[in-house]
């Protein structure tokens, strides 16, 4: 093992935690009303002051949501990259987010037209259903097409088809809430409630812990199926668990924040190049932290750069994430020649 790696690991995690802390404070402090750090501390710990509602009801849940969902997204990307042994796989490029979005829109519109508001668990369930459907398609394709680019192209196409149907459905549904739905279908962390935050924590945190406990078989699987089997991994069970975990994670993100592009692909790569390792025992926690930092940063930009209007979160993540993907593909090309 590389001798410098413990130092690199410590420095990497320290850096991520510092960035996370700074971004949390920055996210709470910035907005139409600027809050000095001292006031934030006062509000958080004593719940006093005139801006207590802004912090407690709007900014804090939104910040926590960006943190949890960002982490979930990056983790889901890492799992998919491992599963397909494909460095540019991710919930968005494989059409899994879009599948979740489609079923979710149908359910929402169906419920809204009957005057029923959907709860957090219903949202997650619907998104999970959609995510699994897309995943099923992608899996079927991956059996036929071993080439990495072909798999990605098929994923992107599935994404387009799902988005087109979603747009169609949203356009023809007549309800005041459609405006919200439209906003959500572009991706946004706005309007998070504490109930949302509670549910997403209940889903994402156990998934994170489970993934971390799977570090060992994941590391074996990274070597290739033949070798993993020889090391004693039950491949069929393991693959099923991996698919389930990544679907749950990306479904949860889509249910609350809509489809968010490129985080799942870009963050694991950035983390790999920071930590110079692909070991899951490092990658799992680091990807989660990295995804949280990335999404907090992008959400900050999304809601401040054209304030009081807001950009969709995907527009921002794409600007920072897509170049990473291009870079990764070019570098692989170079490595191969």
């Amino acid at each position, binding site marked *: 093992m590389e001798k410098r790696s413990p130092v690199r690991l410590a420095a990497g995690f320290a850096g991520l935690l510092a960035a996370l802390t700074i971004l949390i404070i920055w996210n709470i402090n910035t907005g139409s009303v600027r809050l000095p750090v001292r006031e934030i501390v006062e509000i958080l710990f004593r719940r006093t002051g005139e801006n207590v509602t802004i912090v407690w009801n709007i900014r804090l849940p939104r910040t926590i949501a960006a943190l949890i969902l960002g982490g979930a997204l990056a983790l889901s990307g890492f799992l998919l990259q491992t599963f397909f042994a494909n460095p540019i796989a991710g919930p968005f490029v494989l059409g899994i987010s879009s599948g979740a979005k489609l079923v979710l829109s149908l359910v929402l519109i169906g419920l809204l037209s009957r005057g029923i508001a959907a709860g957090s668990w219903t949202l997650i369930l619907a998104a999970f259903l959609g995510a699994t459907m897309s995943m099923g398609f992608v899996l079927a394709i991956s059996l036929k097409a071993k080439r990495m680019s072909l798999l990605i192209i098929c994923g992107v196409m599935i994404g387009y088809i799902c988005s087109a149907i979603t747009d169609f459905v949203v356009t023809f549904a007549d309800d005041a809430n459609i405006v919200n739905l439209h906003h959500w279908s572009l991706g946004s962390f706005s309007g998070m409630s504490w109930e949302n935050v509670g549910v997403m924590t209940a889903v994402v945190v156990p998934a994170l812990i489970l993934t971390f*406990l799977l570090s*060992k078989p994941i590391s074996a699987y990274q070597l*290739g199926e033949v070798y993993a*089997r020889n*090391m004693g991994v039950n491949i069929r069970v393991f693959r099923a668990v991996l698919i389930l975990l990544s679907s749950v994670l990306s479904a949860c993100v889509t249910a609350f924040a809509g489809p968010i592009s490129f985080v799942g692909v870009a963050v694991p790569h950035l983390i790999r190049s920071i930590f110079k390792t*692909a070991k899951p*025992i490092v990658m799992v926690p680091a990807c989660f932290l990295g995804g949280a930092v990335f999404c907090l940063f992008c959400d900050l930009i999304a809601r401040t750069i054209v304030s009081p209007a807001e950009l969709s979160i995907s527009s921002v993540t794409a600007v920072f994430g897509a170049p990473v993907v291009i870079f990764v593909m070019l570098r692989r090309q170079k490595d191969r020649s």
Partner: protein
Amino acid sequence: MEYYISTEKLAVGYDGVPLIENIGIGVRRGEILTLIGPNGSGKSTILKTMIRELRLLAGTVVLDGRSITEMSERELAKKQAIVMTERLQAELMTCWDVAATGRYPYTGRLGILSAEDRQKVDEAIRLVHAEDYAESLFQKVSDGQRQRLLLARAICQEPEVIVLDEPTSFLDIRHKLELLDVLKTLVRERNVAVVMSLHELDLAHKVSDRVVCVADRRIDRIGTPEEIFRDDYIRTLYGIEKGSYNALFGNLEMEPAKGEPKVFVIGGGGAGVPLYRTLQRSGVPFSAGILQENDLDWPTAHALAADVVSVPAYRVPDEETVRKAKEMIRKCGSVICAVKTFEEGNRSNRELRDFADTEGLLVTQEEVLIRAKGAAL
């Protein structure tokens, strides 16, 4: 002694379609069992079934007295290690890290290596002589080095049987020898059983304790190398039509040049071999003589020459043989003499040389080659 791993009435194949049926092979600990046979005969399929990568279509594979299908993944992993032809993906992993993955069945829930694990990895790396590049990235080292690390990885697993699929392909001769040397060490010192497939017959001949011949979708023959590696059997096993195989030396020769012999080569004591090869390469058919059948030149002459004038081992050629050789020289029309000095026992060849000289038929190798080129043009 009992077989450590064996198959009984095993049928192997893909997608439920049997490729080879009724396979019964086995290997004891401390032995090397080698599968040979033409490309596509099913060697890999058998190996893949023995490591449970492919489903058994019928019969059983018994490892240490138990059927492998009844074993848990972890149990099997502690007994059986593999070196397959599939590329091992190792993003950002050093060679040491790759070897260390062999400790997997022995580490805890999170796969963290103990001091003992690390020591065993170091040991395995030393055994395959990979210390110099242990800290390099696996993706950056050569094929030969990778193959050694895969073996180190298998050694770390502390298996009782190692299954290798064509472990020497893509390696140069030095690395081939080193790899097989490590295998021999494992077999001798750690009493490991080895099952592998090999393409290099000469190596298979020298390293194996038992050889299984796979051809035409069946196990054609099983035996010791001495039983298997016979000229005619290897020819039929591989369907060799052009050229020949010399089992004693594990030597492969090309097909002789076609046509009437154009030159007679006086050889003996190894002086003839380079000349025979040169003539064969240039497409010049030739005759050779006079050779005793225990002469160093004889096997090559036998494989490459149109005719060989020879006598049984240790017999001095009689006048009849010399007369036959002279006749052949006349027919060829030219003679190259590869022998520099003639000892007393080689009187007949000196007589041939003198005969060619007086007849004006003695030529050099260069002259023959130039003439051959001219004829071709």
